[in-house]
């Protein structure tokens, strides 16, 4: 359940923005979450909903975009995209070189929609 800590982080960022932009309510928070973070969207929604229950943010929705894992071989420069959730190998299948991660570790609040 590291989703709870992540939900708390999201809430802190949202509250920060509410203050900056003097928002009265927030309808939607857009998130980018890399598949390498092993965040379960349902659990994250559940945790966030629990945190905002009975607060002015109660109706706020999380819009989660899951970012696939992309990696590039440091040796031959080929790029790979890991499609399956649980298949994160980091050795190049062609030349055996080490893969560096390009995307897939994101944990970002990208945009907030509100009035």
């Amino acid at each position, binding site marked *: *359940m*590291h989703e709870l*800590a992540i939900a708390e982080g999201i809430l802190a960022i949202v509250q920060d923005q509410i203050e900056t*932009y003097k928002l009265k309510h927030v309808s939607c928070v857009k998130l980018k979450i890399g598949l390498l973070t092993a965040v379960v969207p349902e659990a994250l929604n559940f945790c966030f909903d629990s945190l905002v229950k009975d607060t002015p943010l109660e109706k706020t929705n999380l819009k989660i975009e899951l970012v696939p894992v992309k990696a590039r071989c440091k040796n031959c420069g080929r790029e790979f995209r890991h499609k399956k959730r649980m298949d994160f*190998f980091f*050795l190049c299948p062609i030349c055996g070189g080490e893969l560096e991660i390009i995307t897939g570790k994101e944990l970002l*609040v990208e*945009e907030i929609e509100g009035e």
Partner: protein
Amino acid sequence: MKVPVIKRILDAQERIAAELKQLFDEKGILVINLMSSPGAGKTSILEKTIEALKDKLRLAVIEGDVQTSLDAERIARYGILTVQINTYGACHIDGNMVKEALPDLNLDEIDILFVENVGNLVCPAEFKVGEDYKVMILSVPEGDDKPAKYPLMFRESSVLLINKIDLLPFLECDLEKINKEALKVNPHLKNFPVSAKTGEGLEGWYDWLIEAFKAKNHEKKN
């Protein structure tokens, strides 16, 4: 109104971890974040490590536990400074919890600080606690498919201790497969097959720790 934000969700966490890291660096303390699933042998390996190194180095332990102080009591028996953190349900230790434990630690009298994380192969991988290295333990009864199933933990760790190898004759667990799969996930992972029960293989781990401590303090204390 749409407000573009682009903020890292765990930014606050990472800032605290960076502050802790800086503090530990100033004091020349090697900090090890020790992680594994429940029952893989974190406390047992710590006990062996303390026995082997306590006369050479000043050791301290932060014990993370969901509920009890059972592990802290086991460690405190060795006369080592031990601080208990109860996470009360949380599945990992974060920087804030370590920060709260600081007043109970005399940082001027510590060479190596072990942070024994909550038993969990997923969440602790995501959080830094000011450590120099994440070290994970996988015990062979857990099976040789774990690197593929919990890649982030293997990816983030610098050292893998494969524990309970004394049980290998009774299991269908392929040590070579663990090794191979772990290196596929993390080509830099340093790997020590050990048994906390018999002591087999632990010398290599102790040597690694001593070397890591020396390397950290090369300019600092000498």
